């Protein structure tokens, strides 16, 4: 199983029936594929609606996702303006947001919007989402392409938001951050705590109930 699929499958287990969810671009958009049968969630799209669905058939005027790509709408979808969209996001009306990350640190800080001197795309809606969603899940590959840890004692890149990350899910490990404590709660099948330590540059506690990720 590829890393992205492992991560998406594990993230899906965090959703509950009836949740309002905002998914970042890239890997997070894979998550709905792995929802348990019968579970219904509503996807929020920051450009102004609830009820995002996959595109079926021809693109329709004005129906695009937050990446500007044609998409579909669920029956019962609702459209609104950007102020309402971000009132939902900032006001705690989005149950979960799942975003990719460049770096996360042991204080629950996330950096995912710029690399000074290299990539300055702008924060778009990311800062509001990470600040306002009820639960922030970072879904990312454990290390960079060069093999460098992304989970650090302290983010070195400019932050998206401070102390807002509740969970970090990678292909190797699942961490929970509660009351400022960074705790390993699961590792990948076949991996050990030492494997996780070797690829993680943050201090973390190991849960008494440490489990192997269930990817079934």
């Amino acid at each position, binding site marked *: 199983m590829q890393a992205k699929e492992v991560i998406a499958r594990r993230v899906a287990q965090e959703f509950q029936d009836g949740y309002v969810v905002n998914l970042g671009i890239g890997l997070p958009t894979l998550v709905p594929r792995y929802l348990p049968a019968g579970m219904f969630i509503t996807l929020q799209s920051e450009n102004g609606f609830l009820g995002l669905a996959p595109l079926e058939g021809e693109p329709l005027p*004005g129906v695009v996702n937050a990446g500007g790509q044609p998409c579909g709408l669920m029956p019962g979808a609702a459209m609104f303006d950007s*102020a309402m969209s971000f009132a939902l996001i900032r006001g705690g009306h989005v149950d979960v947001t799942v975003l990719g990350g460049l770096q996360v640190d042991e204080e629950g800080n996330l950096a995912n919007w710029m690399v000074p001197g290299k990539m300055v*795309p*702008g924060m*778009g809606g990311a800062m509001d989402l990470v600040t306002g969603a009820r639960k922030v899940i970072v879904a990312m590959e454990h290390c960079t392409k060069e093999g460098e840890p992304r989970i650090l004692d302290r983010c070195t890149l400019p932050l998206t938001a401070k102390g807002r990350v509740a969970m970090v899910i990678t292909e190797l490990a699942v961490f929970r951050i509660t009351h400022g404590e960074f705790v390993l709660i699961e590792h990948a099948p076949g991996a050990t705590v030492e494997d996780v330590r070797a690829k993680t540059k943050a201090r973390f506690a190991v849960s008494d109930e440490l489990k192997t990720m269930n990817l079934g």
Partner: protein
Amino acid sequence: MALDKQVDWSDVGPLFRDGISVMFGGFMGVGTPDGLVSVLREQGTKNLTLIGNDTAAPETGIGPLISDGHVKKVIVSHIGTNPVTGKKMIAGELDVDLVPQGTLAERIRCGGAGLGGVLTPTGVGTVVEEGKAKMVVDGKTFLVELPLRADVAILKAKRADRAGNLVYERAARNFNPIMALAADLVIAEVDEIVDIGEIDPDHVMTPAALVDKIVLARRQ
């Protein structure tokens, strides 16, 4: 009888001057009035300050205005989909002020709603807080974000009546309704113009009182 606000395309050009600030509706170009962008471009308007969500792509939305050098400054949440914006920023040809999207929406709303600013938690503990006042309310820290207004707002709507009541289409609504509040001159490019009374009052998304001019979109 209410005023008929429909104007011809030939009346639009003189409404724009060099150096003005322009709010533009749209998200990645969806909900951006392409005809009004073309007017700004064709008449060679210079030194614009553009305020909107993003700079789309080099050939979509307001992208062409940046590509052709009509713009001195942008106040946006995202430039990542338009490499020309980044190049001009690095070359010192374009001033880029990045604002979190929700903060941008609220600053525009404040500018049009008579408010002196808004308190938001977004950006606390990040570079966004630099140089800004903070307030603590019930133990929680907020940034004081100030109102934004513009000389002109250019909007895109699906339908208008002759008085200027507007209805938007799907996700093309985005920033358009709040920008209708926050500019001295509000011009809407619309796909369809109907008689007064044909739009159900419950369906009006932007009231005519906010809209100064409407112009019928040219067929694509």
